[in-house]
Structure formats: structure tokens, C-alpha cells
């Protein structure tokens, strides 16, 4: 039985890599496009199936399965393995990853149906590689494998953000994402390396038992955990490393759903969940985690309020929710963070895919271009609202319990500051999400670009079509009150939406009423005071109400609301200059410094060499002077030589 869950997990893990290898190596097949897409999706489905089976078996057996093969030998021993560690956390994560991966791949068949065949094949190759890497991360039995998969998901993120690399913004966003997460990864690598010197192993199970038996020296452990947290900061977009995530929305929307909402960005949280016993040894670092998490949550929520791009709103919301999870971990209740990770994975994927459907229909990302879509695409609107309610933390919806747990945990840990921040964020979240809902699905569009005919049939992504077919003046001038060509997406796209919506609801209902597996979890961690739930829900409802009043009823003029928060709003529109700071570090510090070093290398280090060689040649030329050609000078030479020799002999004696 145990071996079975290990084997199933392995199958789940290896199916995507099989798909990737087939697509990568058999490139004529890849270039066929749709067959490749279906092949990859099939593999993802298989992976999901075996992941669920593995989860079922594991939850019955309740014994972790540790299945490893030696990977890196040194000094006659093995210092690192690869394999799978099948336990409760990893199997649930595996299920989430494989589910979302499968759904997104399925969805993408519809979403990207006008993509040229080779590009589609490439897309699915990346998707398969991502699924493999993310599952490997979830299943990693040791920190080294975790790190490797961590980097690989970063790679896939880079590749998929830059999928439409012909767009300068996409190409730029891809490298930006890679660099910033890489900066964090460097820290994580340092942490792992340091931990190895301290503990002599990468293995999570061994480290855990060492930590449990106080066998780990505490000296320097804070630095190590902080380094690990650095990695998590990069990947999970914690302040100040959050800047890459909104830009990452340049990728296709399904990618955003999978990678930049549901799975990869939560890897940082997952890492901390996986190693919470290690962090527990270093409370000072946990405090940092909590504060940065709460601050990130607030910052991103504020930023989300001023975005007009639907995907960017969702992106900032993701950052904000990641801040939530991190705060929970910082409060020492990793399970709450993990729960939110799971529910958030479901409903945020739902929101992104829904947004994808909207974008697909409207042909634009911009909220002002939308409006009244609920009539034209009611199903999409419905599932989107389900997702929104989950995110807002309304009871019986997916995000409710996990959010309450986090708030309870933070309160319980006496982190009042972060708690207040999170409360504020809860209200802001409800506000900005319903702002999206009202702007997009209700009312009339404030500004409708005449892009409709580019609508569903465009071959290039919406923005490219937009830019290519119309110059801005035309777009600005074309005020149409309707979005006439918007319609419900095809079944390949709708189906995943419904699956996720149902999933969100099921989780929400089950958790709200303490059903199934949640009962036990609840019983363990119910320490929150009674006023907490009503307050949180109340704050959320207040946010919704404000959004309703502002964007639906127009009772509050959005302009005056904006004016009320004038300085903050203008700062938020500039993203609080954080992007500018990174830009400055890149252009001025890095590139500037590199230019200086480059100049030094060419003109000083190499210059000295040139000088020496030039001197040698010059010396030869100078020495020629003694060869005057006059025979008597030669005799002088002999005379001088004789003298020198005699002198030398005298010196000797």
C-alpha cells in the first residue's frame, strides 16, 4: 500500500516529463500543434488521476513514503538523492498542482486555438515541463531537489511569460521575473549550502528529526532560515521582490492562472510550510516573515485598487494573498497558510481563467473597455463572482475558512500590527475585487475600443492585434456603448471554469461546516476569539458595499474617492516607485558598474600588458642602436666585454 502511493506519486510526477521529452525531442510532433496539445493534456490528466489516487492511499496509510535514489556521490558516499517524499502535505499539493495544471492545459486548447501550430507545441512543452517541475517541488524529499525544481519552475515561468516574446513588454517582463526571483534563489542556495555544513544532509525528514531532537546547532541558524526565506520572498513575491509578478501578466492568461496564481508563486509558502519546524527554531526570522507578509498584503491590495488592467488587479491580489499566507507562517501556524495556499490555488485559478475568458471575448485587458458582460457571458460572470466571493472571504465560499484561520492565527500569536494590516487588507480585497466585478460584468463600458472584430478570431494575442490593427488615435476615437461580439467562451474553456468553481464551492462548504478532513484540522486550531469572524466578514462586506456604491450605483463618484486618497493614489499609480528603484539598480548600479569594470579590464589591466609588450619591442629597437655598423665600435664592445669579464672574475674571488 505504501509503496503504491510512492509509485503513484512517481507516475504523477513522471508523466509530464514524459510528455515534455516527447514534445521536445520529437519536434515534428510538437510542431503539429493541436495533437501535441492534446497529448500533453492527456498526460496531465493521467498525472492528476494518479495524484488523487496517491493522496487517497496516503491519507489512509498516514505514513510518509520516502522513496529515493542516490544522485550525487562524493567522497565515496552519496550527498544527495532524488526521489519522492509522499506525505499529507505533498500529496495535497500534488493534487492541487496536477488538477490546476490539467485544467489549464485543457483550457488553453481553447484559449490559444489561433496560435500557430509550432508555437502551440512549444507552449505545451513548457506546460509539461512546468507540471513536472512543480510536482517535483511538491514531492521533494530533500532541499536540494526542492531547490532544483524551484529553479525549474522559475525557468518555466520565464519561458511562459516570454511566450509572446515578440512583444517587448513580454520579453522584458520575462527576464525581470527571472532576475528578481533569481536574486531570491541565490539567497536560498546560500541557505541550503550553509545548512548542509551545519547538518550534513539535505534530507527533509532527517533535518526534521534533527530539529525535533535539538541536534541542530542554533548558532547561525537564523541566517540560514533567513536565506531560505529570501528564496521564498523572491518566488512568492514578497515585498520588495513583488515587482515581477504584476509584470508577469504579459504571459498568456492560462499561464498566469497556473503559474502566477495557483502554483509556482505559492512555492515560497510551500517551502516555509515544509520547513516550519526549522523556522520555529528562529522566532526572530518568523517575526520578519510575518511583518513583511502583512506589509506585502497591504501594499499589494492598495496597488490593486488603482489598476485598470484586469489581470494586474488579480496579480496584485495574488501578491496580497501570498502576504496573507506568509503572515500566517510568520505567526507560527503554517497549517493555516497551507490551507489558504490550497483554497487560494483553486479560486485564484478560477478567477484568472475567468478573466481569460473575458479577455478572450473582449480582446482587451482593460477594465474600462469592458462592462455589462454578465448579459453576454452569464456563465463566466457567475463563476467569476464565485471566485470573487471566495477571495473576499465570504462564508461558504472557498477562501472564507482559510482566511479566518490566518486572521485567528495572527491574532493568536499576538501580532497585533500585522493583524490590523490584514484586517484592512480584507476590506480592500473585497473592494477591489468587486470593483472588477462591477466594472466588467455590470453597467456599461466607460470606453469601448473598436477591437471587437479582432475579438475571438485574432491570431495574435489581444494586445498585439490591438496595436497592429489600429493606431491609438482610432481607438481613442471609437466610442461604442456595447461589446457586441463578446460571447461565452467555447466548452474547452468553460469546463475548467466550472470544475474550479465547483471545487471552490465544495471546499468552501466543507470547510465552513467542518466536514470531511477539515473537521480534524478545525478541532486542532480553533483558538480565535469569537468576535473575529463577524468582524472580518463585516469588513469584507463593507468593502463590497463601497465597491457597489461606487462602481455600480455611482453613488460615490470614483473621482472623488480617488481624490480623497490623492497622494496615496498617485504614489500607487507609480507603484510606490519600487519598480523604479529596481530599474535604477539595474541600469545604474549593475550596468554602470559593469561598464566601469569593463573599461578597467580593457584599458588598465590589458593596458599594462600592452605597455609591457610595447616596452619589450621598444627595448629591442633601442638596443639596435649599439649596433652602429662601425667596426671600431665593435672593438669597443670587445674591450668592454673583456673589462666586464675581468671585473666579474674579481668579484668572484
Amino acid at each position, binding site marked *: 500500500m505504501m509503496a503504491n502511493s510512492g509509485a503513484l506519486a512517481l507516475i504523477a510526477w513522471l508523466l509530464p516529463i514524459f510528455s515534455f521529452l516527447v514534445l521536445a525531442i520529437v519536434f515534428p510532433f510538437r510542431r503539429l500543434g493541436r495533437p501535441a496539445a492534446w497529448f500533453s493534456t492527456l498526460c496531465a490528466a493521467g498525472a492528476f488521476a494518479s495524484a488523487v489516487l496517491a493522496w487517497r492511499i496516503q491519507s489512509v496509510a498516514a505514513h510518509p513514503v520516502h522513496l529515493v535514489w542516490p544522485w550525487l*556521490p*562524493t*567522497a565515496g558516499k552519496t550527498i544527495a538523492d532524488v526521489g519522492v517524499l509522499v506525505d499529507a502535505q505533498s500529496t495535497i499539493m500534488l493534487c492541487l498542482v496536477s488538477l490546476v495544471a490539467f485544467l489549464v492545459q485543457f483550457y488553453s486548447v481553447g484559449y490559444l486555438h489561433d496560435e500557430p501550430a509550432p508555437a502551440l507545441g512549444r507552449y505545451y512543452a513548457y506546460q509539461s515541463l512546468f507540471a513536472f517541475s512543480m510536482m517535483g517541488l511538491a514531492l521533494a524529499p530533500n532541499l536540494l531537489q526542492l531547490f532544483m525544481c524551484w529553479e525549474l519552475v522559475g525557468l518555466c515561468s520565464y519561458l511562459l511569460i516570454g511566450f509572446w516574446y515578440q512583444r517587448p513588454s513580454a520579453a522584458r517582463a*520575462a527576464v525581470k521575473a527571472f*532576475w528578481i526571483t*533569481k536574486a531570491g534563489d*541565490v539567497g536560498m542556495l546560500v541557505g541550503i549550502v550553509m545548512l548542509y555544513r551545519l547538518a550534513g544532509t539535505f534530507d527533509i525528514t532527517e533535518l526534521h528529526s534533527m530539529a525535533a531532537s535539538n541536534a541542530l546547532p542554533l548558532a547561525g541558524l537564523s541566517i540560514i532560515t533567513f536565506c531560505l526565506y529570501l528564496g521564498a520572498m523572491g518566488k512568492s513575491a514578497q515585498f520588495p521582490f513583488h515587482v515581477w509578478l504584476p509584470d508577469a501578466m504579459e504571459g498568456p492568461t492560462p499561464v498566469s492562472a497556473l503559474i502566477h496564481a495557483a502554483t509556482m508563486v505559492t512555492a515560497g509558502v510551500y517551502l516555509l510550510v515544509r520547513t516550519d519546524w526549522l523556522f520555529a527554531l528562529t522566532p526572530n526570522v518568523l517575526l520578519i516573515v510575518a511583518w513583511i507578509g502583512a506589509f506585502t498584503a497591504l501594499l499589494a491590495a492598495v496597488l490593486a485598487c488603482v489598476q485598470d488592467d484586469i489581470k494586474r488587479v488579480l496579480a496584485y491580489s495574488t501578491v496580497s494573498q501570498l502576504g496573507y499566507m506568509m503572515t500566517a507562517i510568520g505567526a507560527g501556524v503554517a497549517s493555516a497558510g497551507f490551507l489558504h495556499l490550497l483554497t487560494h490555488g483553486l479560486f485564484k485559478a478560477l478567477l484568472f481563467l475567468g478573466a481569460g475568458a473575458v479577455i478572450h471575448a473582449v480582446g482587451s485587458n482593460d477594465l474600462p473597455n469592458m462592462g455589462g458582460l454578465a448579459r453576454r457571458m452569464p456563465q463566466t460572470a457567475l463563476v467569476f463572482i464565485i471566485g470573487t466571493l471566495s477571495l473576499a472571504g465570504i462564508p461558504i465560499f472557498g477562501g472564507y475558512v482559510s482566511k479566518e484561520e490566518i486572521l485567528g492565527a495572527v491574532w493568536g500569536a499576538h501580532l497585533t500590527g500585522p493583524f490590523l494590516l490584514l484586517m484592512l487588507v480584507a476590506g480592500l480585497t473585497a473592494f477591489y475585487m468587486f470593483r472588477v466585478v462591477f466594472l466588467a460584468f455590470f453597467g456599461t463600458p466607460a470606453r469601448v475600443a473598436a477591437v471587437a472584430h479582432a475579438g475571438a478570431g485574432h491570431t495574435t494575442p489581444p494586445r498585439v492585434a490591438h496595436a497592429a490593427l489600429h493606431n491609438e488615435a482610432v481607438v481613442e476615437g471609437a466610442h461604442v456603448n456595447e461589446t457586441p461580439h463578446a460571447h461565452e467562451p467555447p466548452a474547452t474553456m468553460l469546463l475548467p471554469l466550472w470544475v474550479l468553481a465547483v471545487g471552490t464551492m465544495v471546499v468552501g462548504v466543507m470547510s465552513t461546516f467542518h466536514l470531511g478532513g477539515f473537521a480534524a484540522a478545525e478541532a486542532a486550531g480553533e483558538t480565535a476569539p469569537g468576535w473575529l469572524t463577524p468582524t472580518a466578514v463585516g469588513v469584507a462586506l463593507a468593502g463590497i458595499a463601497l465597491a457597489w456604491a461606487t462602481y455600480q450605483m455611482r453613488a460615490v463618484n470614483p473621482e472623488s474617492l480617488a481624490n480623497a486618497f490623492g497622494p496615496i493614489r498617485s504614489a500607487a499609480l507609480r507603484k510606490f516607485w519600487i519598480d523604479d528603484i529596481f530599474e535604477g539598480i539595474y541600469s545604474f548600479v549593475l*550596468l554602470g558598474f559593469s561598464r566601469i569594470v*569593463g573599461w578597467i579590464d580593457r584599458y588598465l589591466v590589458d593596458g599594462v600588458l600592452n605597455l609591457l609588450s610595447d616596452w619589450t619591442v621598444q627595448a629591442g629597437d633601442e638596443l639596435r642602436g649599439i649596433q652602429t655598423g662601425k667596426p671600431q665600435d665593435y672593438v669597443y664592445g670587445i674591450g668592454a666585454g673583456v673589462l666586464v669579464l675581468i671585473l666579474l672574475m674579481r668579484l668572484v674571488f
Partner: protein
Amino acid sequence: MNGIPLLSIMTWAPFVSAIIIMFCARHRPLLVRLTALAGASVSLVASLIVYVAYDKTMAGFQFHEQLALVPSLGINYLLAIDGMSALLALLTSIIIFAGVFASWTVKERGQEFYALLLLLVTGVYGVFVSLDLFVFFLFYEIAVLPMYLLIGIWGSSGFVKPQGIFGKAMGRTGVGTKEYAAMKLTLYLLFGSAFILVGILALYAEAGSHSFSIIALQQVQFDPTVQKWVFLAFYIGFGILAGIWPLHTWSPDGHASAPTAVSMLHAGVLMKLGAYGVVRLGMGMLPDGMAYWAFLVGTIACINIVYGALSAMAQTDLKYVIAYSSVSHMGVVMLGAATMNVVGLNGAVFQMFAHGIMTGLFFALVGLVYEKAHSRAIFSMGGFGTMMPGIATAFTIAGLSSLGLPATAGFIAEFMTFLGAWSSAHPWWLFPGVIGAFLTAVYVLRVTKQIFWSTQSPDPHFAHLPDAQGPEWAALGILTATLVIFGVAPWIAVGTIDTATTPLIATLPKVAGASLGLLR
């Protein structure tokens, strides 16, 4: 093994085919290429056999071959291979095999080109397999010298504006031209070999056993003072070839000017000769010398890593970027060696291999891009990914390996080196190392993005560019596959390396401050 002199076959097969090319294949370009390919294939097969047949359980040197060259002076043609050299010989085989394909389109004076290339390779093999210092040195020089003609004849000139306080001298030396680059490279490396020669002779004289055999000399306990100075000589001598700062400046100019296959071979394999020399001769025979200078070696390696990466970032010529990246990556190799523990040294040797393949791939790709687009100016190119997806993909993979992405060989190497650095007596070496890794990510992706994954350049010259064709695919395929296979399955290499490094490290003196007894 069974009396077949595999190592000699491996070493001399390219030489024989060079002779055949020189005298028998005149003016028949295809025959020239096929002969070269045959020579490279024989070596590849031989090195594969050696690599596979190498008995990991026995460790030590295997496949001995011996022939008395000058018995009165104790000079023998003594060949043998251990885990480290087996891997490096394999590296050489892969690179030259790919290099033959990569230079398939060399038009002008192809016969001489291939002959010289193969001659060079003979030297490289010779260094890796010879166990006699004299023969070692002999092959070493053979490996350096053909470079002059290879760069001088088939290279390409760049432009460097002389300025700064040494501008006058730079103007006179003709900086930027291929002739300058060829001469600088050759003389610089030969300058290094002067140090090596003195070191070798000093060992011979100090040992007093009238033997040049590395094994015999390893048994000798040299006086610490001797060790100190001879190690320094070896370090400078081999270090020049390994591109240690500040003696690295031959490398960017040389590699940028050299034709494709030569850059591949030189950056890919020859720089490894330097590092190999430091490890084999320096560490292997002068443990106290190594311990004495370890701090210097490691610190300079750190400078190399960061400085090389920053310099690479400053370049606008694609080939210079790759060339400087070699400087940076060779720093990782030297850092691994300086850690004086098994993990670090394994990382160093693995990095030799990984960087060899990676940079070989890089230079092959740069060559292809140049051949098709006739440009090396990074910021004039753009959006080639659509037109040459194969080249773009391979370049990206090479770049990822270079920035140490897992599942490529580069990661394993860097990771082990970092692990070794943190466990060494000077743990802070870790930080320049990882900073270098980050900077590499910056410059590599910047270049990759600019050239391949961005908007199509408006320049009409770049409107229709073909992807790699025919034999070029072979070069790219072999190198890319190697890079990934060894990244995914590092034990193939590390297990073999380990048999050589573990005994080597065991001979080193214990150093205060180093940790991890289990790695020693």
C-alpha cells in the same frame, strides 16, 4: 586493457588524420572533412571506451602505457588515466567532434585548418593522459601553438579604440586585430609555460630521483619551501591558461577573434588544461604548497567570478560576452580547487566539463549566428528566435547552464563548488560565487533576450535568416544533449571524478577552519 593502447590511439588519431589531411587530401574539401571526422570519431570512441571501462572500484591510474623515451634522463612516454582525466578526455572528444561539424562550412584553406585543429587536439589529449611531466609539457606546448595560425588565418578582427593612460602603447600593439589577438594569446600562454617548465624542472631536480613520472614524484615529500615556490610557478603558469585574474586578458581577445571551432576548443578544453594542471601537478604533487597558497587561489578565483561576470555584462560584442563568461566560470573551477575538499574539487572538475561543453556550445552558436547574420553586435540584432528557433533554443539552454540552472551540468558544478567553498577554511568565498551566478543570469539573459527573444530587428539584413543546417545540427545536438544529460544524471561524471579526487584530497594537509570531516 587487453594490450590495446587505447590512450595512444585516442591521442594520436587526430594527429594521424592531420597528416593524412595535409598530404593526401589536398583540394578535396569533403575528403578533408571526412578524414577529420574520422580522426575525431576514433578519439571519441576510444575515450568513450576508456570512460566506460574505467574501473571505478579500483580508482587510481589505469590503462597504463609505457615506452622509454630517454632512459638516461628518466623520461618516459608514460600514459595513464584516472577519473578526472578520463572525463576531461571525454570532454575533449565531444568538443572536437562537435567542432568538426561546426566548422564544416570553413571555405578558405580548409585543409590547413583541419590539420592544425587536429594537431591541437592531439596536444590536448596528450596533456590529459600523460603521466610523465616532460611529455606532459611537450603536449602542453603542442596544444598552445597551433592557435597562433588558427586565429591569425581564420580569425576575425574587431575594433578597439586605444584610450586611457596606456593608449599609446595599445595603439602600437594593434589591439583589436586578429593578428594582435593571436600573438597575444600565443605568447601569453607560452609565457605561462615558462613558469611551468621551471616548476617541472625544479621538481625533477629537487626530487633527485631522476624521474619525471608524476606517480613517482607524488611519493616524494618535497621541502615545504620548494613546494611553496613551485606551486606558485605552476599556479601562475597554468593559471594564465585557466584565465586567472589579472592574467586573463588574452582570453577575451583571443576567443573573440578565433574562428568558431577554435574558440570552442580553446575556451572549452584548453582553458581546462590550465585548471587541470593546477590540480594534477599543483595539488597532486605539492600538497603543502597548495595549502600555503589556497587563500590566494581562492580569492583570485572569487575576483575572477565577479569581475568576469561584470566585464561580460559591459560588452556589446556577442563573442566577447561569451569570452568573458569563460573568465568568470573558470573562476568557479579555481575556487573549487582552492576549497581543498572533495566536494569542492569534484565541483571544480565537473565545472571544467560543464563549462567546456557549455562554452563550446556557446561559441558554436555565436559562430552560426555570425555566419548567418554577419553580425556580432548584440544591440543591432533582435528577434532571431522566430527565424532560427533551433539556434535560439540551444543558446538559451547554454545560457541557462551558464547561470547554473538545475537540470543542466552547470548547476551541479556550481552547487558542489559552493558547497565546498562554504565548507572550506574561508567560507566567505561562497558569496562572490553566488553573486557571480546572479550576475551571470543578468548578462546571459539580457543577451539572450536581445538577440533571440525580442522584437524583430528592423534591419533588413536580418529579414531572412536560416536556422542551423545539416552538420551544424549535429554539433548543437551533441553539445546540448550532453549539457542536459550530465545535469540530470550527474553521477555518471561525479562518480568517476570522485575516484580521482578523493585520494588526491586525502594527501592534502588538514586546514584549520575547514569543516565537514565527511567530505575529506
